[in-house]
């Protein structure tokens, strides 16, 4: 999978991100690193433990990372979750399911991106 195909698959902004990062090489390096970012796991864990403030920080971090990397689809859901948690609410409706699904797509896509390396 090429980087263009990767961004198409995950619903991300290839052109904008490459422009902001001044080149494809840097985008590639950090997109591959996304696998190791712990904020998604932290968010799930904090929600299971009912810790809203930790969940907020984790969601906020995830949102920031996705935004930086131009993972727009995942960013949008993370952003919605961040705002619900910021208001102190825990009822996330189907947003977490959506987030998990989109996160799964990104992780799978990263694996095929890696195979092409």
């Amino acid at each position, binding site marked *: 999978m090429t980087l263009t195909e990767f961004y198409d698959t995950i619903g991300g902004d290839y052109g904008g*991100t490459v*422009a*902001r*990062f*001044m080149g494809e090489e*840097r985008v590639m*390096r*950090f997109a591959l*690193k*996304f696998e*190791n*970012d*712990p*904020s998604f796991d932290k968010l799930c864990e904090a929600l299971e433990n009912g810790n809203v403030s*930790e969940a*907020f*920080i984790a969601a*906020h*971090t995830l*949102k*920031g*990372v996705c*935004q*930086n990397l*131009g993972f727009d689809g995942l960013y949008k859901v993370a952003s919605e979750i961040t705002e619900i948690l910021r208001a102190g609410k825990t009822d996330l409706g189907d947003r977490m399911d959506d987030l998990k699904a989109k996160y799964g797509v990104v992780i799978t896509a990263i694996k095929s991106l890696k195979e092409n390396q």
Partner: protein
Amino acid sequence: MAAVKNKKLKILIADDSEMNRAILVDILKDKYDAVEAEDGAEAVKILRAHSADIALVLLDINMPKLNGFDVLEVMNKNKWIEEIPVIIISAENASYFTERAYALGVTDYISRPFDVSVVQHRVINTLMLYEKQKMLMDVVEEQIYQRQKNNSMMINILSHIVEFGNAESGPHIQHIRIITEILLKGLNEVSDQYNFSHEEIALICTASALHDIGKVSIPSEILNKPGRLTDEEFAIMKTHSAIGASILDKLPLYKDEPLVKTARAICRWHHERYDGRGYPDRLLGDEIPIAAQIVALADVYDALTSERVYKAAYSHEKAIEMIKNGECGSFNPLLIKVLDVVADELYAELHSDTGETDDVEVRQITAEVLSQKQISASGRTIAQLEKERNKYMIFASLSDEVIFELSYSPYMITFLNGGGRRVGTSEIVVNPLDDEGLNKCCGKSRLQDIALLFSRTTPENPTVTYEAEILLDNTLKNCKLVAQTMWSDDEKPEIVGAVGKISPV
């Protein structure tokens, strides 16, 4: 000035996301050294230890422990914000966040998702701006130094001309200046009555050089007469103090300058006596301005310890003794006490070879001038403080005690040299009362007792002592806590923090 060519400037990157930090490090690493902090508390810790080294901070807002605003508060409290520019990088774009950040002194606010080249350019621009500001501060410092130096040079030359006809002159003016300075500083130490600023001390010392200008109008036969003066000659000699003052009074310009006013007081009244039996005005006690009292004492001490046409030099000890016994005039008892306290220093200074204008003085004055304009002391002063801090750390590492600093805003404890581990917690503890490790170490109620003791201290009684059996190095031990609270300089002092130690009894 930072050595831009030889050394990469250090940038502190505070962001809780490793990924975000890695991206920033990646885009800055070619030109800068990046130091990373994964939360606000770590950022504060790094700033505390290296504030003179950090050229810029890139700061995230939402972080665990201390958030970006907390970090900015600490930077304001410690005045680091005046030396170290901060650029916020945050996804929070609401005006509430940007306004608050600017109010807390940040230089720039970059929204996520950021553009690599925008970050690079804003970092460069900010660093250049601050570098320029530092350069300007150095220029100001240098100019004040030059001005001060030229002033004292001019005054020294003129006073030497005045005293040229006076065989005894020689290093007299220099001596008076040194003695005056030591006495003024000693007076500050011994008593709270005057609290001279560095600037006032410099002013009085400069003015002291003019104390004998009235002698221009005394015939040199009288001035340099080897034997005792007749009553008539002495009467003429005595006019020099009033004449000196009137010379300054007749100055067409500068009459109202503080330097001239001080010099006038010194000229006219440096032969008054505390018991009211001096001349020309027979002022009594503290009617004599303190500057004149001090120069009078300096004058007598120097006259005693110097060789004159009519006498040999007395030893330092003998001179002090004679002054204390009231053999050479009558002085303010407070000044006699000061003389006693500074006697050794006086001897050492007058017998050392060091030049006169010391840059320490100039730097202090510069710092004072600048601080009046809400600019803090220069980087050099901060580097100096850091040196002190390092010394302190070395002492701490040599001791068996747990040493800590407490700050109130934010409410946190910083342990030095692994002390946190020894009491079962981390090196930086935010909200200590709720800290699991500390609660385990000495129990909730004891923690609250100690906090209460701290809150009951006053600037006059700042010490806290407390003894209890606590978990130190995982063992129950009888320990003693000794701490001292620190207070702001405001008119109504506020508690700002404390330093203390915990040691096994």
